[in-house]
C-alpha cells in the first residue's frame, strides 16, 4: 500500500509539475491577491501576510490539481485496474493528494520572494511561524480540498460543482484577515476550518490553535479516506463507473 502511495505521489509531481494553470493558481494568483491586500495595509510583509497569501496559492493550486489529476485518472481509465488491486483506489488517491501537497508547497517560498522584493520583510520576521505555519496550512488545505476528490471521483460532470470551493474556503479560512474581522455567520463557520486555526497561530495565538488545526486536519483526512472507501464499495455494489 505504501509503495503504491509513494508511486502515485511521484507520478503526480512528475505529470503536473509544470502545469500552466497550476503555476498560475499557485504563484501568480496569490501575488495578485497580495497586491490588492497591500493596497489596504501598506505594511511590510509579516508571517501572517506571507502565509495567508501562500494559503491562497495552496487553495487554488490544490483545487485545480484535484480536478485535473483525478479527471485525468477517470479519462485514462486507470482507476479500474487500481480498484482490482489489493488495497483498491485509496492508496492512489492518498498518493495523489500527497503529491499535490508537495506541489502546492511551492507557493510558500514562491510567493514570499516577490512579496519580499516588492515590500520588504517586517523587522524580526518570525521564520519559524512562517515555516511551520506554512507547512501546517498546506496540510490543512489538502485535507479540506481532499473532500473534493471524492466528489470528482463519484459524480460525472462534477468540476462545475466544485468551483465554489475557492470562494467558500477563502472566506472561511481567514487567510487574509483575523477571524474577528469576518461577518458573524462566517466567523462561526470558520471555526470548523483547520486553516483558520493555523492562521490564528501564525498571527500570534498560542500552540493550542495549532493543536486544534492538526486535530481538524486529521478528522478531515479521515473523512476523505472514509468517503473513498465508501465509493469503492459503491462502485463494486452498484457498478458505478469510474470512467469519465
Amino acid at each position: 500500500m505504501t509503495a503504491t502511495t509513494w508511486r502515485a505521489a511521484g507520478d503526480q509531481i512528475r505529470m503536473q509539475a509544470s502545469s500552466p494553470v497550476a503555476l498560475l493558481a499557485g504563484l501568480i494568483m496569490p501575488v495578485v491577491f497580495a497586491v490588492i491586500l497591500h493596497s489596504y495595509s501598506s505594511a511590510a510583509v509579516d508571517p501572517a501576510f506571507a502565509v495567508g497569501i501562500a494559503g491562497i496559492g495552496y487553495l487554488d493550486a490544490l483545487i485545480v490539481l484535484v480536478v485535473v489529476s483525478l479527471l485525468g485518472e477517470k479519462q485514462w481509465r486507470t482507476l479500474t485496474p487500481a480498484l482490482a488491486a489489493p488495497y483498491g483506489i485509496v492508496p492512489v488517491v492518498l498518493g495523489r493528494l500527497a503529491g499535490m501537497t508537495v506541489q502546492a508547497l511551492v507557493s510558500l517560498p514562491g510567493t514570499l520572494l516577490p512579496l519580499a522584493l516588492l515590500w520588504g520583510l517586517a523587522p524580526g520576521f518570525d521564520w519559524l511561524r512562517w515555516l511551520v505555519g506554512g507547512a501546517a496550512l498546506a496540510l490543512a488545505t489538502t485535507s479540506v480540498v481532499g473532500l473534493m476528490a471524492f466528489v470528482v471521483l463519484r459524480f460525472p460532470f462534477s468540476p462545475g460543482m466544485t468551483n465554489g470551493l475557492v470562494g467558500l474556503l477563502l472566506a472561511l479560512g481567514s487567510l487574509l484577515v483575523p477571524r474577528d474581522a469576518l461577518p458573524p455567520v462566517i466567523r462561526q463557520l470558520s471555526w470548523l476550518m483547520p486553516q483558520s486555526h493555523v492562521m490564528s497561530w501564525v498571527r500570534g495565538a498560542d500552540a493550542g490553535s495549532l493543536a486544534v488545526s492538526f486535530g481538524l486536519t486529521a478528522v478531515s483526512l479521515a473523512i476523505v479516506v472514509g468517503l473513498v472507501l465508501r465509493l469503492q464499495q459503491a462502485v463494486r455494489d452498484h457498478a458505478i463507473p469510474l470512467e469519465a
Partner: protein
Amino acid sequence: MSHPVLQGAALSYRALFTWLNPLGYLSSRLIRPIGLAVTFAAVSSHYGGSVARTLVGASLLACAHAVIYGLALAVANERSFGTLDLWLASPQNTLAAICQRGLPHLVDGFLGGLITYLVCGLLYGVLPVPLHTFAGALILVLVSAFGMGVLTAGIALLVKDVFTTPNLAHLLLMVFSGTLMSTEDLPSPLRPVSEAFPISHVAAYLSGPVGRGPGLLESAVGEVAVGLVWFAGGALLVQIFLRRGSRG
C-alpha cells in the same frame, strides 16, 4: 424556446457547462463570487477601507467574471467533448456562434452580480447604491465584459489549456478594474492602462464623490467603448484563426 438563436444558445449552455444543476449552479455561480466578495469586504473593513466600495466592486467583478469565463469555456469545452472540429466544420459563422453562446452568460452574469450584491448587503447590513442604479451598472458591465469574453473565446480556439486564459483575465480585472483596489494605488504608469479594462469606468462613477467623479454619460460611453474595443480584438483573433486554417 422556438427562436433558433435562443434555442442554440440554450442548447450550448446545457451541452457545454457542467454547473447546470442546482448544486453546481449554487457552487459555481453564487458561492464562489460571494466568498470572494466577503473576503475582500472583510479585508477592507479590517484595514479601515470602504466596505461599501468593495461590495459594489466585488459584485460587479462577479458579473464580469461569469461572462468572460462562460464565453471562454463555451469554446474550450467543445475541445473537451471532441466536438470542436464538428462545430468549426459546420457552415455556421464562428464569431456569430460565439456571440450566441454568450447570451446565457449575460443572464448568468447579471444574476450572479445582483445576488452577490444582495447577499453581501445582507451580511454587512448595507446596500451602498440603490438597487436600480446597481442594476444599470451591471448592464454596462455586461457590455464591456462581453467584449473581453469574445477575446478569451478567440484565444480558446488557439490555446488548448482550458482555464489559464479566463483565470488570467480575472486576475487582470481584479487589479486593473478599480473594483477591489483603487486605481490610485497602481503605479502611475499603469493607471491609464486600467481605463482599457471592463468595469473601470462604471466603478469610477460609482465610487467617485458626487459631482467630482466622472459623469454618468461619460462613464457609460467609456464602458461601452471598452467593450467594443475588446470585441473588435476578439473578432480579429477569430478571423485570424479561421484564415490560418491550422486548428491543431
